[in-house]
């Protein structure tokens, strides 16, 4: 139920973003917030995958729901010019190679969406899904995020 509520909120937010043009600095704030929350929840999954924290289906499932739902958010807040405002590490290449950026974003979203099921299956499956998602995150960081 909670996952549905979160999803509903997110869909509402993203719908809003599409309806009215958000200020560039607001977009930066929103996408960074989403990334920060993804990172926080992904850390839970990663700790279990690496055996630093005992595997717990319920906790893993919850964290995975968050990551999966949040993964949809950032792409809506990468409007033109949002690499030049506030504190952002977004590189201008995002807009120069938008198709590639979008493709990498798609991969990240689709990998993240496998997490909830994997988290509720078993540790070995979770581990694989965590690695695939981590790689998908890293692919964008390498090319489109300033160091």
């Amino acid at each position, binding site marked *: 139920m909670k996952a549905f509520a979160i999803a509903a909120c997110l869909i509402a937010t993203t719908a809003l973003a599409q309806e009215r043009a958000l200020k560039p600095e607001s977009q930066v704030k929103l996408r960074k917030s989403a990334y920060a929350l993804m990172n926080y929840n*992904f850390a839970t999954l990663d*700790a279990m995958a690496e055996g630093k924290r005992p595997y717990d289906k319920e906790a893993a499932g919850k964290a995975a729901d968050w990551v999966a739902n949040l993964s949809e958010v950032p792409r809506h807040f990468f409007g033109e010019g949002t690499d030049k405002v506030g504190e952002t590490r977004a590189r201008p290449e995002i807009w120069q190679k938008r198709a590639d950026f979008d493709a990498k974003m798609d991969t990240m979203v689709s990998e993240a969406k496998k997490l909830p099921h994997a988290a509720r299956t078993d540790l070995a499956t979770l581990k694989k899904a*965590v690695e695939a998602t981590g*790689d998908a995150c*890293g692919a964008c960081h390498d090319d489109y995020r300033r*160091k």
Partner: protein
Amino acid sequence: MRVRVWDLPVRLFHWTLAVLAVFSFVTGKIGHGWMAWHVKSGYAILALLTFRLAWGVVGSDTARFTRFVKGIGSARDYARTLLARSPAPFLGHNPLGGWMVVLLLAALLLQAATGLFADDDISTQGPLAAMVSEAAVRQLTRIHAYNEWVVVALVVVHVAAIVFYQGPLRRNLIGPMVHGSVETAAPAPRLAPTWFAAVLFGLSCAAVYYLVAILPPSP
């Protein structure tokens, strides 16, 4: 006369470091599934470097910094003889090679040390990242990312120099780093006992273990 120029600890240190440096570079590039190994490799490198610094002070003659770290002047003079393809013979590191050792050790130490505080914002965190501010983590992660290429550049120069000696100058530097001995008229350097190196390496491992396993607060 055949003289032992590199003691066993220096040789073991050298080749283990070479393998681990390549391994660290590769695992860092492959990423996620290999990052746990990248981190472990960094710990091992840190222990090796700690040992080498100590060995450079209290170890064998040819390992000591005071013996092979010379002024810029003598490095320049040596470079001239090198370009003239008749380098003066040195038992141990020559003045230019000495600076290569210092630069490589410094760059690798910086790389290993910043790695302790680095965070890739995905799943890999250095063991000490939790102990410093976000701004510090960010800065140290950047240094870790840029200095990586400084290390690569130094390794390229180092290997190119070896190739230059091996090829045009017909001087085998790889052999002595493997078996330890050279043909020379110079008096044999004083070599420190291997057990002493083992003790120092044990202490180095203990220091690194403290840094990465005991010092950090448990999550």
